[in-house]
């Protein structure tokens, strides 16, 4: 919100380079303190026009598109890994749980695990790497809103999870003979759980003081989502149950798992998804703040 009025004024006042030269000459002479016309520039408002800022949505779209294109170059093998891991877990758990609510929890947990793997773990690693490698300087020296960079990257990583999550949910439904009638709920689960987890991933990656720590936090977050999401909640001791309640992916798992009921309680599903949405908004806001902090040191 800085100096918007001042900026507009500069744009109207100055079109040629001559005033800028005058300003320079005056500064060189060491008397750059005269403030004229109430502008905030010490040179008295004879500043050169600024190039326009990039607006939020166009730059968000540009970042999103660029991030999405990276999948072709770098991410495809990892997306397979995410899916294979989840399908493998379901095959293993088939020997342990025998239908009912536990089977639903396993399928829902494995599906959301794909989101956690990509959006939380990989995004935390990406931002950690970008920060450590000086890549944030590139964005920080462009007139782009911080939110566009964070939301664009988070959105792209959430999108990467779509095929894997759907494949896992369908495979799981077949394996455990669960009804696929309400699987359309994934349309809400993926973006909302994606927002919550990618926001968390981005914040961890940008806040971690070192790159290795960002990787570690991403891995830990994913492990938590794995253990607390896939294992049936009923068998957990109370403190671990509380930890489960704190993890945002849990609410995505719950929402998906309820949708396997013949007559799902939609109010509770909506409530679960609302939690994801709120966590998503908060964590993306934190990530945006962390980006600003990391970009200008």
């Amino acid at each position: 919100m800085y100096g918007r009025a001042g900026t507009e004024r500069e744009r109207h006042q100055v079109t040629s380079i001559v005033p800028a030269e005058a300003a320079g000459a005056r500064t060189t002479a060491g008397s750059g303190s005269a403030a004229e016309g109430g502008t905030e520039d010490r040179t008295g408002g004879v500043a050169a026009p600024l190039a326009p800022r990039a607006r939020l949505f166009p730059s968000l779209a540009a970042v999103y598109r660029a991030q999405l294109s990276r999948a072709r170059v770098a991410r495809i093998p990892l997306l397979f890994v995410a899916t294979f891991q989840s399908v493998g877990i379901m095959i293993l758990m088939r020997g342990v749980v025998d239908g009912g609510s536990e089977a639903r929890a396993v399928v829902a947990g494995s599906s959301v695990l794909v989101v956690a793997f990509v959006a939380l773990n990989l995004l935390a690693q990406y931002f950690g790497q970008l920060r450590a490698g000086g890549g944030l300087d590139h964005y920080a020296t462009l007139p782009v809103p911080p939110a566009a960079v964070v939301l664009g990257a988070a959105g792209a990583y959430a999108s990467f999870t779509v095929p894997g999550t759907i494949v896992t949910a369908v495979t799981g439904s077949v394996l455990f003979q669960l009804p696929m009638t309400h699987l359309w709920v994934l349309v809400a689960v993926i973006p909302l759980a994606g927002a919550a987890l990618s926001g968390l991933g981005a914040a961890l990656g940008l806040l971690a003081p070192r790159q290795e720590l960002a990787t570690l936090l991403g891995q830990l977050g994913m492990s938590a989502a794995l253990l607390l999401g896939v294992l049936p909640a009923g068998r957990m001791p109370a403190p671990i149950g509380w930890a489960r309640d704190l993890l945002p992916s849990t609410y995505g798992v719950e929402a998906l798992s309820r949708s396997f009921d013949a007559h799902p309680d939609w109010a509770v599903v909506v409530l679960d998804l609302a939690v994801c949405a709120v966590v998503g908004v908060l964590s993306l806001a934190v990530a945006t703040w962390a980006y600003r902090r990391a970009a200008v040191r």
Partner: protein
Amino acid sequence: MSTGTAQAQTATGTVCAVRDLVKTYPAARGRRGAPATPEVRATDGISLDVRRGEIFGLLGPNGAGKSTLVRQLTGLMRPDSGSVEMLGHDLVRHPERASRLIGYLGQESTALDELTVSLAAETTGRLRGLAVREARAARDAVLEELGLTDIAARPLKKLSGGQRRLACFAATLVGERPVLILDEPTTGMDPVARRAVWAAVDRRRAEHGTTVLLVTHNVIEAETVLDRVAVLERGKVIACDTPTGLKERVAGEVRVELVWRDRAPLDVPEVAVLRQSAQESGRRWVLRLGPDEARAAVAAVTGGAAFAALDDFTLATPSLEDVYLALGGDATQGLVKA
């Protein structure tokens, strides 16, 4: 390679005025595997004036404070004290304005590595505030200008170091800015790519009066490209002039380089005397002498017994490297001649 015409058009207005810029990195406590480092003054009272339309160089070895200064000019780092005035804008108070005045090419390409050359340029243009169509037109023009059209569809990661650098330079040019700050833009480039870079820079100077601030530790490039150069040493500007003006400071001297076959014939009295003023590195001696002394030295080593032991010798007018040494710079290995 720099055109004289652009220099002639240079107006005298100051585009960037830096005053008493100070940045101190705090002392770091030692950790496991990392020894403690004392407090470092990375920029220690730097003052500069960069004029409109010139290519202004920052020359110095690694650790001289070039990158810290550039980070302060681009709004990436807040100085402890001092001021930066760019085209009438106070960039210490409003660091966010830097991105709307400056096109910056940093040393890292991490953010663009996995994009194709074409998408890297287009995305950067869009993030510089261009609409999709403008960004694509500017992208096509710049890639064509720099001869990158053939590799436009390849990801930066898969390119050689020089090509990747050129692609990053292309991204810097998409979306015109009155000031370009280029941090070692030609690192790893072959001569063709270098020429493309300087041609593109000169064109923008001639057409738009673009001002360029160039960070380099390459003395040959500095001599051929720069209009003026500030020599940095330990966070301070130890000299600031045109390359010719700087070289005039040591104009009375000639650089004599002698290479011996296996060792210097110290039994020849003239050679033994020369040794006192020589900088030795293995079989190679470098001397900076007055013209008469140089003539005498050459006569001595090219006649009689000494000549049999001589492998090669060169006489040259002093380079910026000699200037740097004469000014008291001590990190010769930090400057590159290539």
